[in-house]
């Protein structure tokens, strides 16, 4: 992810005099159409909601208050901590963490196996892992939905081989969402770890092996620390999109329990029509992601020293 920041072997400055002209289009486009909107969203989160959608330009902390405090159904009880939204955020974090761990457990060995193949076959394996990454996420989620429904192919197969008597109820459960997130972002885990492993010098492992280090010790104490940046990058690439996912909870989870993505969507497209609250929830999600990314940047900076 960090391509472009690293300093090249020599810092060329052929285009230095026109640098600002070259950079200006990207600054302008992203600045006007993303940075300004995000700042505007921050402003909106402090506005008063208009009944049935939209905002009134009056300062208000109501959105954040609603997020944090439960004042009862009628808004006049003494404030207690509001668990509803914290639960939704916690659920999303748990789901995203679960997906990340699952992806790591499957993704690391896969990346390792591919990286240790001879160059020729390696390309084939890599190609196979890349294809699903290019296939439309919606189509992959729909395929998963089709596969795991009550009388879908998976249950047919499981009951066919006599593993279960009645269909395994997967669809519309949190397990299905977990499975969907894991499935959606698995290639995101494999590719960066593979990239790190490809540069790994196996001489380190050999040296350790010559000193009679057991194989799993080598993996744990020599190899993993060296390829750690790739692992962290993979984890972030899975965790961040899982956190704000919309398709998996909507299609696989039956839209029954909200995750952050569906909670936000509901404020703008669904029944609730509470724009400031949707903006506030988006800001909270964004802050969480930025914190994660800051840790990543700091860890990376430390590794480079």
């Amino acid at each position: 992810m960090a391509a472009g920041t690293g300093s090249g072997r020599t810092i060329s400055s052929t285009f230095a005099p026109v640098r600002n002209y070259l950079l200006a289009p990207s600054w302008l486009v992203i600045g006007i159409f993303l940075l300004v909107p995000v700042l505007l969203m921050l402003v909106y989160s402090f506005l008063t909601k208009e009944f049935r959608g939209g905002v009134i330009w009056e300062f208000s902390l109501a959105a954040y208050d609603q997020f944090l405090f439960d004042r009862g159904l009628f808004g006049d009880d003494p404030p207690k901590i509001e668990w509803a939204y914290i639960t939704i955020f916690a659920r999303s974090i748990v789901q995203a963490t679960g997906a990340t761990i699952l992806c790591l457990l499957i993704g690391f060995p896969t990346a390792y196996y591919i990286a240790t193949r001879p160059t020729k076959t390696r390309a084939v394996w890599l190609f196979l892992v890349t294809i699903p990454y290019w296939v439309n996420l919606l189509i992959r989620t729909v395929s998963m939905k089709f596969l795991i429904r009550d009388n879908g192919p998976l249950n047919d197969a499981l009951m066919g081989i006599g593993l279960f008597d009645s269909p395994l109820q997967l669809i519309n459960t949190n397990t299905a969402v977990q499975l969907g997130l894991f499935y959606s972002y698995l290639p995101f885990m494999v590719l960066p770890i593979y990239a790190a492993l490809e540069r790994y010098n196996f001489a380190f492992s050999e040296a350790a092996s010559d000193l009679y280090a057991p194989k799993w010790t080598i993996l744990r104490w020599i190899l993993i620390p060296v390829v750690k940046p790739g692992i962290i990058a993979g984890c972030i690439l899975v965790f961040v999109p899982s956190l704000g996912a919309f398709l998996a909870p909507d299609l696989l989870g039956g839209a029954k329990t909200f995750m952050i993505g569906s909670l936000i969507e509901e404020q703008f497209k669904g029944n609730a029509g509470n724009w400031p609250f949707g903006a506030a929830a988006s800001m909270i999600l964004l802050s969480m992601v930025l914190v994660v990314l800051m840790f990543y940047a700091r860890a990376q900076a430390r590794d480079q020293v």
Partner: protein
Amino acid sequence: MTLKSLLTSTALVMTAQAAAAEGSLSVYHWFEYIPQELVDKFEAEYDIDVTIDTYDSNEALLASLKAGTLGSYDVAVPGDYMVQIMAGEGLLDTIAPGELSNFGNIQPQWVDVAFDPGRQHSIPYQWGSTSFSVNRDVYAGDINSTAILFDPPAELAGKINVLDSQGEVMALASLHLGIPQCTTDRDQLRALDDLLQTASESWASFGSDIAKDVLVSGDAAAGMIYNGFSAKAREEGANIEYAYPDEGYVVWMDNVVLLKDAPNRANAILFMDFLLEPENIAAVTNYAQYAAGVEGAAEFTDPALASSPENTPREGAGPGAFIAVCDQATQEVYDQIWTRLRS
């Protein structure tokens, strides 16, 4: 500003192909609610290109229009209470008297309706009911009570789909409790909240557009559903029965409304007139299996429809009730109850 002109010109190129016909009409409609043949017929008759976008609840329609799509659609098809809300929000244009040549075709009982007195903004599209259907292979017991949804028997618990439509869920829940809709009584609102919180533990999914499919595919054993949609599910092979519960059920009428700032207002009027022709609106009835509100449509509708179990309320069923429009304070409580359901 060259970027902007580039974008504008490319957008022009892209929209150019849509403007090939004499005129165009942009319809914002419920999903699966108008037969393609009827759209084709209108397009051919008037040389007008029709584009149809779909939504899956009255609330989603309102949200989308308020979020910036107003001004790009000509007509929409909101339910009764939503016509009233949209009119109050200033989202509707007024149809001048005499502007619709087929206005006289509207059945008298549907002209001066409470949600749009004198039909200033709308014409009838279809009317029907909302309650629920149960898969008879899974549950053979009595289904004549809203308890099926709100206090389900063990066979159905965890296998229920509920419409993702606040208005309908709140109205049915109020009927179940025997409290008035949009009640301002705090104890009643608390009871409503408790009921839904408990009931939602037995619900598997929320969704309106999925309502038919989950019953056909067996993903759900019971589901809140519209009567015509349930009839279609039954025709597609689901062994389901649509209930007319003792506590009552929701009655609705969907209406074609003229939207404010409609880009093709004249074509919208043509379309509304077209849908007031008995033969045309009957085609919708035959497709969606609800009932039209136009004189003479019965002549063109499939006679079997009138006597279908979904269209015949059971003897002894509770009364049908239209969804009420709540004031802001109650609506905000409703919104809160609704969000708590999903957390």
